[in-house]
């Protein structure tokens, strides 16, 4: 049964523009109501009823955590609960969706999906800040994806190339990943053999991967700079006129000499741009993807060139070599692509309500049967109608009645169709917990993007620019210094191999122990040399704005920056949210301990409870919101005489609601005593009611 594009009708009054503006409330509610009625149809057909409407306390907590990624402050909770206006919930949703807190929360989710690693080479930082800014300014999803898939050049110029650089030299893995993340297709295993279940052969896989077959992980800008410098240094090649006046032998000698000089200078200069090659891509129209050497099927020869062709959706074939990536980007993000829109719509549905209409969210087949197929179709239309504006799409979901229903008591079964009576109960993510701790300790939080990260990226782009436009003489000096560093590195490696042989040849335990000890120093030197041979670091060290230690590529500062903020000491002062730190966080930090993403696979963040987490909530200094003389909450409670008020305060801070009358009876006596109240507060922090989001 075909659904009329009702969403389009409802949203007709939108003036299309580059970045969609907010929709009029009336229309948002109409679209949301349609979603609710379609859900209801299915529930009625299955003799199920939707769950009850949640109370204000549950609502405010769910809205803040779901929309801006943190618990409300005591004041925010108090004022909302006291507000008697009938439309306060809708107003709150609109305020929260428009706030910068929404950006921070959405960024965590998106960066996890894309596996952004802030400190990967230099580009990582640029990709991180570019994505953060793109989401904050409402760049439509299809444009974000298109920007990334079609990107080329050096990261300092076009940070979106970070998407490709994330899988540098692993072009096929990158392609598999694109298919999974954007189109929900699990075709990775077809890289090595015909797909066992689906109709996809290894050849098919290569046909689609071939769109990025001309991608080279190197910097064209760097190559051009080298060429320019070589010409400057050695003058132009001998002119035709001068050659004409020579005999054959002379001509040959002159040409050979000039070629050798060119080669020599080039080989001196190229190494200093090696880092550039780790942070740039370019398209080589003459390069194409070939089948692997051990291709075993009969349909093609091993090593054969594979022409790029799409296998579903819009047919793309015979594309000009210069257009391959651009075409692919267009094909993936096209409204006509059978999966692009439904995948992002379903992902956002899962993000909002806890479980996808199709679950898992990245395994779509042609015969996939989502729960509520009409809802999904409608969501697709809606996504197109809002021009892929993730904020507005989310806002529509938040305005449904579904968003205000009680959580289902039983979790959905993996892989089974799950009819939606209410949202799914979920634990806070690591970032939600981290950010909520900031609120508990400070009573406020800073939602803005980190100026520090932006600054560091600026400094890097300036240094890159400097190097690409440097005087030839300066480049030659840099080349000399780099070559020296290389020699020292090779020497260190040779020494290391000698020591390894000594270990192998040691006869006695003592000798072996000595040899191992001796080799360790050399090995450390080797590792240091390996890192320090980078000329860009030398340039940045020369800048008076930063030292080599502070340069973006020095992962250590970034990481220790994490630690500085994540240990007990700095935490009170830091109001910066988890999204403003380089990711992934270090293992054994609070964020990682609670399942924060390691950015190794798409959406790898998890909310699996563990013993170290329980210990952290029980005993860690970072989670102590009430102990000690400096505790803000402690001081606040000490200033309140009345036990009832004290109890209300802790309930508002931790649970964003007032105690029920039974709770008041049970706990007010406890609230009279400050030690007991402290224990109660700590108990609340470790309770399921705190860390789960109803």
């Amino acid at each position, binding site marked *: 049964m075909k659904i009329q594009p009702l969403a389009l009708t409802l949203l007709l009054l939108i003036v299309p523009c580059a970045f969609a503006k907010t929709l009029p409330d009336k229309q948002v509610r109409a679209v949301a109501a349609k979603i609710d009625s379609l859900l209801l149809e299915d529930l009625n057909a299955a003799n199920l009823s939707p769950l009850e409407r949640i109370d204000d306390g549950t609502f405010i907590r769910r809205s803040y955590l779901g929309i801006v990624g943190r618990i409300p402050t005591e004041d925010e909770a108090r004022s909302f609960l006291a507000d008697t206006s009938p439309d306060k919930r809708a107003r709150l949703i609109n305020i929260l969706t428009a706030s910068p807190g929404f950006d921070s929360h959405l960024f965590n989710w998106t960066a996890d999906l894309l596996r952004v690693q802030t400190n990967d080479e230099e580009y990582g930082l640029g990709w991180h800040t570019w994505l953060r800014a793109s989401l904050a300014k409402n760049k439509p999803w299809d444009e974000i994806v298109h920007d990334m898939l079609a990107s080329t050049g050096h990261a300092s110029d076009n940070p979106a190339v970070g998407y490709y650089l994330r899988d540098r030299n692993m072009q096929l*893995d990158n392609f598999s990943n694109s298919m999974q993340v954007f189109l929900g297709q699990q075709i990775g295993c077809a890289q090595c053999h015909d797909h066992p279940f689906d109709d996809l052969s290894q050849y098919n896989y290569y046909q689609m991967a071939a769109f990025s077959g001309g991608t080279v992980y190197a910097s064209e800008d760097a190559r051009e700079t080298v060429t320019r410098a070589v010409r400057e240094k050695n003058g132009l090649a001998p002119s035709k006129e001068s050659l004409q006046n020579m005999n054959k032998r002379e001509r040959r000698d002159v040409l050979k000499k000039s070629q050798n000089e060119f080669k020599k200078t080039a080989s001196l200069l190229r190494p200093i741009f090696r880092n550039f090659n780790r942070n740039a891509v370019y398209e080589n129209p003459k390069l194409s993807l070939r089948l692997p050497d051990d291709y075993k099927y009969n349909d093609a020869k091993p090593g054969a060139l594979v022409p790029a062709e799409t296998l579903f959706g819009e047919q793309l074939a015979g594309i000009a070599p210069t257009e391959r990536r651009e075409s692919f980007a267009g094909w993936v993000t096209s409204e006509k692509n059978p999966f692009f829109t439904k995948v992002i719509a379903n992902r956002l549905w899962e993000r909002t309500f806890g479980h996808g209409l199709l679950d898992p969210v990245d395994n779509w087949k042609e015969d996939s049967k989502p729960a509520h197929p009409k809802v999904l179709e409608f969501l697709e239309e809606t996504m197109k109608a809002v021009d892929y504006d993730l904020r507005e799409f989310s806002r529509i979901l938040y305005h449904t009645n579904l968003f205000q229903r009680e959580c289902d008591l039983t*979790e959905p079964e993996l892989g089974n169709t799950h009819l939606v009576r209410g949202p799914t*109960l979920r634990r806070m993510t690591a970032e939600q917990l981290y950010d909520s701790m900031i609120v508990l300790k400070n009573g406020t939080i800073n939602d803005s993007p980190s100026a520090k990260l932006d600054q560091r990226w600026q400094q890097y782009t300036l240094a890159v620019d400097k190097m690409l436009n440097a005087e030839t003489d300066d480049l030659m000096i840099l080349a000399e210094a780099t070559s020296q560093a290389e020699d020292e590195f090779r020497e260190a490696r040779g020494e290391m191999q000698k020591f390894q042989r000594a270990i192998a040849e040691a006869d006695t335990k003592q000798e072996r122990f000595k040899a191992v000890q001796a080799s360790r120093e050399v090995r450390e030197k080797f590792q240091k040399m390996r890192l320090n041979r980078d000329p860009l670091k030398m340039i940045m060290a020369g800048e008076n704005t930063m030292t080599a230690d502070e340069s973006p590529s020095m992962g250590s500062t970034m990481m220790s920056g994490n630690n500085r903020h994540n240990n007990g000491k700095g935490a009170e002062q830091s109001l910066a949210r988890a999204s403003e730190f380089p990711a992934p966080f270090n293992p054994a930090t609070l964020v990682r301990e609670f399942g924060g993403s390691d950015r190794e696979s798409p959406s790898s963040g998890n909310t699996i409870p563990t013993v*170290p987490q329980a210990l952290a909530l*029980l005993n860690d200094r970072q989670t102590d919101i009430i102990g000690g003389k400096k505790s803000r909450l402690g001081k606040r409670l000490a200033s309140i005489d009345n036990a009832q008020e004290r109890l209300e305060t802790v309930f508002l801070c931790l649970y964003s609601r007032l105690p029920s009358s039974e709770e008041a009876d049970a706990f007010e006596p406890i609230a009279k005593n400050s030690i007991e109240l402290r224990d109660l507060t700590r108990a609340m922090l470790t309770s399921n009611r705190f860390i789960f989001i109803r």
Partner: protein
Amino acid sequence: MKSNQLNELSRRSFLARTAKTCFGLSIAGSASQLFSQRAFAADPNIQKAGGGKAKNVIYLYMSGGMTHIDTFDPKPDTPSEIRGSTDTIKTNVDGIRLGHCLPLLAKHMDKVALIRSLSTTQGAHEQGKYLMHTGYDQRGSISHPSSGSWVSRLAGGINKALPPFVLVGGSNNHPGGGFFEPKFSPLPIGDPQKGLRNIRQRYDTKDESFDRQLLLRKQLDHDFDSKFHKGQRAVRANNEAFDSAVKLMRSEDLEAFDLSRETKASRAAYGSEPFGQGVLLARRLVERGVRFVEVEFGGFDWHDDNFNQMEEKIPTLDQALSTLLADLSAKGLLESTLVVVATEFGRSPKINADSGRNHFPKAFSCLMAGGGVKGGQVYGATDETGSNVIENKVDASDFNASIAFALGLPFDLPLMSPTKRPFKMGGSAGEPITKLFA
């Protein structure tokens, strides 16, 4: 060889009937209690066949796909386009050779069995890692338990206060406990040098306060739990983690997690990198009664600069592994501790344009030692270039069946998922490599 004939379903119903009449407790509660109190004893049939000697497992996972021909399966007679700068060294076992970055391990070859014939069709990291850990292909519809959780479930814990399964340095995408109940999931230690943190009550908290806190937590969650505990695995897991945490805090065995109690020499011997310290922690935990410890070592995905990275990284494995074997042997624990080195796939013999090697699931190597494994042997073989398995192919399910076999556990006992489908530690049809133990 005869496999364990126990039928999980009939056992459960027996326990259920008993529970109803004797304890009046929930079925799950009493059944699990009875099950864990039952002393774990290796299946006598497996013991007859040479297995069942191990009580513990130390599982070292090289994440990213560790090259095989530069390490456990060197090919000295190949041209440099394949061999690269890798040399081959002799070991203390005639006829067995290793790549030159493993000189220390070479002195312990007599304890080690190399398995050179691993072969799968999973050339992607996540899928390959999942397959090696669970014995099953990754599917959207189910989450299979990893070998550590299988061992926890089938063999139970040893020490009541310590978890049966600890994962050191694990990444987010570790399959963990899969569909098993939360208590079989690993306890994760992010940084072995930091160990298990936050184990002491806050400085300002007397015991009376702490106990009050625990009681109040239960009170506060009473309504929530009565609604959600039964139908929400995550809630059960959270409560489980909380109870275990409190138990651990009160246990004397906590010091098992504390590396600072090891001597300086001991810590130096394992190597100062987190991996080496993780292996030391594993030995320590096993000594004190943790059944299964997995230590993950990331960064083996050498698509470029294979040889420099090899020089940098393999020595860390070499040092940690050889020290572990020597240490276990000296303490008389080698026979009862199965040591495993695994990875998701190998790397292409043909060196690519970036001096690297690409993913290669068709042929790769793993290692087992201790736990009754007969050392000084090579199981399986690849061709001259390490490109194809030519003898005794082993897949992930055989590999995990062998781990079960070493412990005397029923590798083919089907256990039901919540969706009523049967799964086994040895995958759907895995067979243990008995030759490793005979």
